[in-house]
């Protein structure tokens, strides 16, 4: 039966090795992100359904046309800035992963620091935008049940979708900070690899990915 043993050792699915050639933790992160993708899809698609079934719907670029400090009409400028900040923080994250793959602690520290800063800037922008949207232009603003710009559903979806995404960004910033802290403490140098940076990096890129969709379907279309 030597042929059976030969096939048993070469078969990817007989255990003892990862058929996907990734670690357990990374695979679980992918499965989690897949489930999270379904949650965000459900939110965005139900937004689409309510929009399709409504009598009228506001033009988003006319609703989100304010920027801090200047009292001018600047449609999409502020949310565009937020998009650029989030993409930039994704770039600094891949550079942190690249540094980690070379065991470069100083590099990981530097790039993780900028990634955290990017996340904090994004969250601050979102806080400003929420506050501006809630206070409105003197016609009652917006809440989960009232919306001066159009149907109340529009405001409810805005709070749910950007709020759910913002919660993800907040968790991402906390996770990034823990990684940064562990890096500074030399935890990954002792462990001998920086795979945690990759795993949290996957999560951070996912948050950026979701924003790409929220940006298109909430602000552009």
């Amino acid at each position: 039966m030597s042929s059976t043993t030969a096939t048993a050792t070469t078969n990817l699915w007989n255990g003892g090795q990862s058929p996907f050639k990734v670690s357990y933790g990374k695979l679980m992160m992918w499965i989690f992100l897949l489930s999270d993708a379904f949650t965000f899809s459900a939110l965005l698609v139900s937004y689409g359904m309510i929009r399709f079934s409504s009598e009228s719907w506001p033009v988003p670029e006319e609703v989100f046309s304010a920027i801090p400090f200047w009292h001018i009409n600047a449609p999409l400028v502020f949310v565009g800035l937020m998009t650029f900040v989030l993409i930039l923080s994704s770039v600094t994250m891949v550079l942190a992963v690249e540094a980690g793959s070379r065991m470069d602690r100083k590099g990981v520290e530097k790039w993780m620091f900028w990634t955290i800063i990017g996340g904090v800037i994004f969250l601050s922008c979102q806080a400003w935008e929420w506050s501006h949207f809630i206070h409105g232009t003197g016609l009652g603003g917006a809440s989960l049940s009232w919306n001066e710009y159009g149907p109340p559903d529009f405001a409810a979806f805005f709070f749910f979708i950007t709020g759910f995404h913002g919660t993800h960004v907040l968790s991402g910033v906390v996770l990034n900070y823990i990684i940064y802290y562990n890096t500074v403490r030399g935890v990954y140098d002792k462990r001998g690899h920086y795979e945690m940076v990759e795993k949290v990096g996957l999560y951070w890129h996912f948050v950026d990915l979701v924003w790409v969709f929220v940006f298109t379907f909430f602000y552009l279309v």
Partner: protein
Amino acid sequence: MNTEENNITVLPVNKAKVRHLIKIALYLFVVTAFEFLIAFTLPSGGLKTSIFVIMTIVKAYYIVSEFMHLGHEVKGLRWAVIFPLILVVWLIIALLMEGSYIHIANFL
């Protein structure tokens, strides 16, 4: 407590890899800038929406494939992540059709 005590060798920066990542980032910025251009120049309608959807899928492809490295993983993992998303395609079709019919029933 410097790193030499732990016998850690720091490799030099992989310049080709960093250049590749910067290139992907530039694509993302260019596509986003293009979206802005479209947002202010084209009238609302099917064409504009289609362009936005295609641009979004292009950006999603670059983020997932390059930044999240999925494009360089083994085939099994790639499909394990991509294939279940077919359910989302069904959800989009089902709910958007349902929404249109509710609109017709209520307002037309």
